[in-house]
């Protein structure tokens, strides 16, 4: 019995991580404080990292935790701490006037998913290779076959740095004026 349990442990963990990621994502819609929403998003990203690890793509799991949780969300948490997140309490409610259209759209999409579930979704085609790829294969493909994507990431990061500097300069001009 224990050997059966251990044999299916990765499947159980995958379902547990997926369920926790879904619950964390759903909590983002109902929590009021932005800091709690940020913590829910961080936990969702960490659970998704666990899913990637269980799928065997360990380097993407590492990227997920390092880049998303370690950089993007820390930046977001700093921004929340810098601003006063409590001012929405004075402006009446946390939901916008598009609450019902948004909810109806979500219900329609959930219904489409449920119909797909009950009708058994088509199985994804299996590749010839099948085995999970490692960082060596990924790096070789990234720098040779997909060099355009690599260059695109460089250009995007450069554009982001220039845009962030421009925004900061505008901020300073506004302070002086």
């Amino acid at each position, binding site marked *: 019995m224990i050997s059966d349990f251990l044999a299916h442990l990765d499947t159980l963990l995958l379902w547990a991580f997926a369920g926790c*990621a879904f619950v964390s994502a759903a909590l*983002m819609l109902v929590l009021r404080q932005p800091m709690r929403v940020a913590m829910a998003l961080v936990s969702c990203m960490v659970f998704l990292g666990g899913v990637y690890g269980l799928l065997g793509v360990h380097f993407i799991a590492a990227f997920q935790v390092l880049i998303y949780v370690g950089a993007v969300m820390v930046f977001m948490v700093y921004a929340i701490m810098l601003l006063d997140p409590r001012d929405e309490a004075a402006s009446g409610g946390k939901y916008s006037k598009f609450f019902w259209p948004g909810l109806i759209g979500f219900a329609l999409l959930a219904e489409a998913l449920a119909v797909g579930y009950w009708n058994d979704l088509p199985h*994804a085609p299996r590749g010839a290779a099948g085995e999970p790829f490692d960082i060596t294969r990924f790096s070789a493909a990234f720098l040779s076959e997909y060099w355009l994507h690599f260059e695109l990431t460089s250009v995007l990061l450069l554009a982001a740095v220039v845009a962030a500097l421009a925004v900061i300069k505008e901020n300073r001009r506004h302070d002086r004026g």
Partner: protein
Amino acid sequence: MDKVQMLQVLAASLFALGLTGVIIRRNVLVMLMCMELMLNGVNLSLVTFAHTMGSAVGAVLVFLIFVVATAEIAIAIPVVLLLVRRKRTLDIESYTDLKG
């Protein structure tokens, strides 16, 4: 429902929850976080297909999305800070004069 189908359903659910959050929430920072959730849903879908097909192109696109998310946040947060300095609020409905 096998593993791949479950992960695709989860990816679609994450994208739908993120989109709903962008539509129904009023706080600008929460809306930005919901956009990140949408990108996470897309990433999960790409990783699942890359894992199933044994191809590297999904991982390359995931890497590209990581960079896009980082660049988006690096620009969006200073813009939000600038807007909040002018309007003194994070409420998206206070920025209706940006409509033009």
